[in-house]
């Protein structure tokens, strides 16, 4: 049996939609990591005396958190600028993330958070450490009702 054609995230593409804009901007040159969210569905269980196993029931899909880490570059061209603006907007400005593990090119899949109901719920600011020569990074978490999949065409 032939092995499947595996792929790495070498050509991964990351896009953001922040604030009141309705277009995606590619931020692959600034983003370093997209932590895959663990999507879950509500479950319930109950036990009865006459059986040894649980009665299991299932509910709705729960919201997910997508965490993204970026390289801090300063200035208004740095995606951090718009992420920070959305973060400081009263009640939270829309911040949606879309990532395509194999790249934003035809026939590849992309996953995205809601473009209307996604908000940044955690933001780690750029920090510094005199004993560390690594690039300065920041991190933000987008809370969203669901992650959807679509294919580039």
């Amino acid at each position: 049996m032939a092995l499947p054609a595996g792929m790495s995230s070498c050509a991964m593409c990351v896009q953001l939609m922040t604030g009141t804009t309705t277009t995606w901007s590619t931020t692959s040159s600034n983003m370093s990591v997209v932590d895959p969210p663990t999507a879950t569905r509500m479950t319930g269980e109950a036990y009865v005396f006459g059986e040894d196993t649980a009665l299991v029931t299932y509910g709705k899909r729960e919201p997910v958190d997508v965490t993204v880490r970026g390289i801090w570059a300063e200035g208004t061209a740095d995606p951090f600028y718009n992420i920070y603006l959305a973060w400081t907007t009263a009640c939270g400005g829309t911040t949606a993330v879309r990532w395509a593990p194999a790249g934003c090119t035809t026939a590849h899949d992309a996953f995205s958070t809601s473009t209307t109901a996604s908000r940044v719920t955690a933001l780690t600011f750029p920090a510094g450490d005199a004993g560390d020569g690594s690039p300065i990074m920041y991190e933000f978490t987008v809370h969203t009702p669901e992650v959807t999949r679509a294919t580039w065409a």
Partner: protein
Amino acid sequence: MTNKRYKGQPVYRVLKPIILSTTGQEKAPGAIVDLSHLPPDSLKWFLDNGFFETADGEPENEPAEPVKPCVGCE
């Protein structure tokens, strides 16, 4: 600028969620789109894999990108 497509240009109905590479906008099943930017081989792959079906004659059209006014067309 109007988004009027060229006369005779085929359009397709989306059957699975897609992202138009020309605009970056996601299109849900049911949307009518212009795929004139796709090479024939690529278009065939999408049709064979059930992403689109032909929708010629549909009154609504959502072009992949704004097209220039059609000179000499209706």
